[in-house]
């Protein structure tokens, strides 16, 4: 048995309007090199000036991750040559990151666990390289160059792929709550590298492998699972694990060695002379601390308390800021909080996942969603119908009440109508009726089923039950 030792290095693009050191927009998906200027292109003579919002957002994240914020902040140059790096150095932070010694808590079935955060620092993003299928050239687009990037490095406190996944979900939730990043992994606004090694029973720690190129949370999990298995198999065979960087291949579901002739890194860090130090007074930090919103953990606790829902439900609902917002809007309109939470967690989430819809972009507004629950309460639709109406509302974008009306799906509560159906069913199923008199309860259930079939599900089951019982009894007595 081996114990995996995992550390994660997450890069998140900060949600500012302009870049870290110049006024270019950070909007995603624009024509190549259309959002560039002498500064983010690293043209000769250009100089960086720090975007205050980038520092503020970084500090927000650092404080929310329980970090110690440095009073003296400086930037350093990390020197290396790469075509996506316009100056051939990256403005980053080396020996004095803006914050360090933080923590993030993850909840799992085995309870709460603390993952220590080693450091959180601010740096600039590089441009993007594109390798066309044909030809001998690679293309460089500097639109992304200079986008503010937060690097969040955990201590190697994570001991399973599952835990790494939970860590990422929780980190994403926190950053979304803070509104510092949109954490969109597809657009590259959140990126994650992992370090993994195995500790054997004797306690000896194996060589570290760095995993890159995972572009989804599930990818991180799968890559780690694969890598842990791969390393364990090697160790079982008494083979050595090479310290290296491996890339996750999401198509083949394997990690592959990055077989580049990588020379030893010698980044020649030194203080960035073009930027002055940032010395933050207590007040500045205090103001940012006070501006922090309620974070997932606190919100979950409040949900459990205020809405009287199970802790687990509260944790699921608050894991996504926008889901939690949705829930809260619903319970403002409809006070049966447990029903709302059940419906969101089972029905709504299932449909969203199936259709790959982000709750943020859900067109079904809370008011419409709770109208389904209200119709059930009114007795105008059954639970079964309600479950059918929800996906239809999602697809057609129609109001649930309109769907029910249009389809004539309104439940039949009219006693006379149901009585006619019941009479018909009893007449058509003499055997079942006979069995009922013999004391077979299953016969009753069968007859109810038949009523629902004949009414095409529209008969209010409560009313149908009552009338069936009355009629059978009346006949039995006769």
């Amino acid at each position: 048995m081996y114990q995996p030792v995992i550390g994660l290095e997450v890069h998140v693009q900060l949600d500012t309007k302009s870049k870290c050191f110049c006024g270019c927009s950070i909007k995603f998906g624009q024509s190549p090199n259309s959002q560039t200027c002498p500064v983010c292109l690293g043209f000769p003579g250009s100089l960086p000036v720090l975007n205050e919002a980038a520092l503020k957002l970084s500090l927000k994240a650092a404080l929310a991750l329980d970090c110690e914020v440095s009073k003296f902040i400086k930037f350093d140059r990390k020197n290396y040559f790469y075509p996506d790096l316009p100056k051939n150095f990256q403005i980053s932070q080396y020996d004095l990151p803006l914050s360090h010694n933080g923590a993030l808590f993850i909840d799992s079935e085995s309870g709460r666990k603390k993952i220590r955060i080693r450091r959180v620092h601010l740096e600039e993003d590089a441009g993007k390289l594109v390798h066309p299928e044909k030809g001998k050239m690679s293309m460089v687009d500097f639109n992304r160059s200079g986008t503010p990037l937060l690097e969040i490095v955990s201590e190697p406190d994570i001991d399973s792929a599952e835990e790494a996944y939970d860590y990422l979900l929780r980190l994403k939730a926190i950053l979304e709550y803070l509104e510092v990043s949109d954490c969109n992994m597809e657009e590259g606004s959140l990126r994650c590298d992992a370090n993994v090694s195995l500790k054997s029973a004797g306690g000896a720690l194996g060589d570290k492998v760095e995993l890159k190129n995972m572009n989804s949370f599930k990818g991180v999990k799968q890559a780690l699972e694969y890598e842990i298995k791969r390393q364990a198999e090697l160790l079982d065979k008494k083979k050595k694990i090479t310290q290296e960087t491996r890339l996750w291949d999401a198509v083949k579901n394997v990690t592959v060695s990055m077989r580049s002739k990588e020379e030893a890194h010698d980044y020649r860090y030194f203080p960035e002379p073009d930027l002055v130090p940032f010395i933050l007074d207590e007040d500045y930090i205090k103001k940012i601390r006070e501006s922090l919103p309620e974070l997932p953990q606190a919100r979950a606790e409040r949900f459990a308390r205020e809405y009287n829902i199970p802790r687990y439900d509260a944790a699921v609902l608050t894991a996504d800021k926008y889901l939690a917002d949705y829930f809260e809007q619903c319970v403002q309109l409809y006070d049966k909080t447990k029903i709302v939470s059940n419906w969101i967690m089972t029905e709504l989430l299932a449909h969203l996942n199936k259709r790959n819809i982000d709750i943020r972009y859900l067109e079904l507004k809370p008011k419409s969603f709770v109208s389904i629950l209200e119709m059930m309460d009114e007795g105008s639709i059954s639970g079964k119908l309600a479950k059918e109406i929800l996906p239809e509302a999602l697809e057609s974008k129609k109001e649930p009440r309109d769907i029910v009306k249009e389809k004539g799906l309104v439940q039949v509560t009219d006693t006379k109508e149901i009585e006619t159906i019941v009479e018909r069913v009893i007449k058509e199923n003499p055997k079942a009726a006979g069995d009922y008199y013999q004391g077979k309860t299953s016969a009753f259930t069968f007859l109810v089923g038949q009523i629902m079939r004949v009414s095409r599900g529209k008969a209010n089951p409560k009313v149908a039950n009552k009338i069936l019982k009355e009629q059978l009894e009346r006949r039995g007595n006769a």
Partner: protein
Amino acid sequence: MELHRLTAHQLSDLIAQKKTSPKEIAQDLLKRIKKTEKKVKAFCFLDEKDVLRQCAELEKRTSHGALFGIPVVIKDNICVQGQDTTCSSRILKGFKPPYDATCVRRLKQEGAIIFAKGNMDEFAFGSSCETSCYGPTHNPWDLKRIPGGSSGGSAASVAADETILALGSDTGGSIRQPASLCGVVGFKPTYGRVSRYGLIAFASSLDQIGPLAKDVQDAAILLNVISGHDGQDSTCADVKVPDYTKALVNNVNGLRIGYPKEYFAKGLNTEVKDSVETALGLLRKLGAQVKEISLPHTGYAVADYYIIATAEASSNLARFDGVQYGHRASDFDNLLDMYAKTRGEGFGEEAKRRIILGTYALSSGYYDAYYLRALKARRLIKEDFDRAFKDCDCIVTPTSPTAAFKIGERIDNPLAMYLSDIYTISVNLAGLPAISVPCGFNEKGLPIGLQFIARAFEEEVLLRGAYTFEQNTDYHLKKPEL
């Protein structure tokens, strides 16, 4: 009228009196250049048509600026939009910046004519203007000699009356030393006084743009225009800019002047020493309190400088890789090879030497021994000045230990070349303002310069001292024969 012989303030008066025009001045200079430039070779780019176009534009202007119609030469490491800006290096050949440096934008606003690009040591690496990829500039006082560097083209063009004003940049003496060797005024402002935006960086923590001029008044006028806060340079201080021409008073009465004994020791040429001592005598006679002071860490400045400056340069010059602009090698196997060949072909010998030295000083295992140590020594050098300025208002020294040396004389001995900046380097390390003014000629008729150093942002003290000295001497009026 020989307009090219006049100063900016004289020409401004003539323009105001409608006795001349920007076009007349430009044409007179272009005529002068036809005669002298093939000897001096001060410029790497001069576009006559563009100069005349600028003159025509100026004629349409309704409001005149502080430098209306005054031609200014721009050192080739300062960006001028759409004009070749190459740091006199092969690696930047053909580079036309898409933007103006802040100081160039301000010059244009004030009606100056962006006249030509001044030749320089490649990337400002040098003290002789010999390492330019366009070939050396010659000293107008003796064409066999160097004009000093790295702003050699700027200094020589002012001395040769090929321009009225020039901008240079000073990282370790690159304005003051050529000014001294060419017999003109060179002003290195306080670090942070003038925006560096658009100055192609050599060593970011030392570089500063400044004026080269025919007299102190012209330097003050140019300094007025280029000084002041700029939101595009984080290191440009938000300190109020006084009207520097108001500091031009002919009076040093009570001014406390210190002369550091370390600057008058071994290595100082006797003729230079005599001139500077005579100058100190004159200042004393004019009412200044002159006394000896000590800057004990002077002897470490050159060593300190060559670590800090080359380390920063190695990083600043990493961007010249053939991807976005400038030279790209034509024959290579892969990306790595393209980098190595592009840079191997594009950089000259001195640039390579400094990049290698700087890369080494920052490399793994050597950072503490070199770079970190240098940052600490830098503090000691600055503290020397802080202490000295408790007892005096300005410091007077020779600008350069010798007058102009011969072309080729030191090119094979980098260390000897580096030591020619021995009196100017400390000022950059300490971030102080300093000015060099002519203070005599040696037996061969070569100019000698006198340096005034003041506290940070006390440019006015320098102007007062230098102006008084100039008003009581006539070295600045002498012209080389060309």
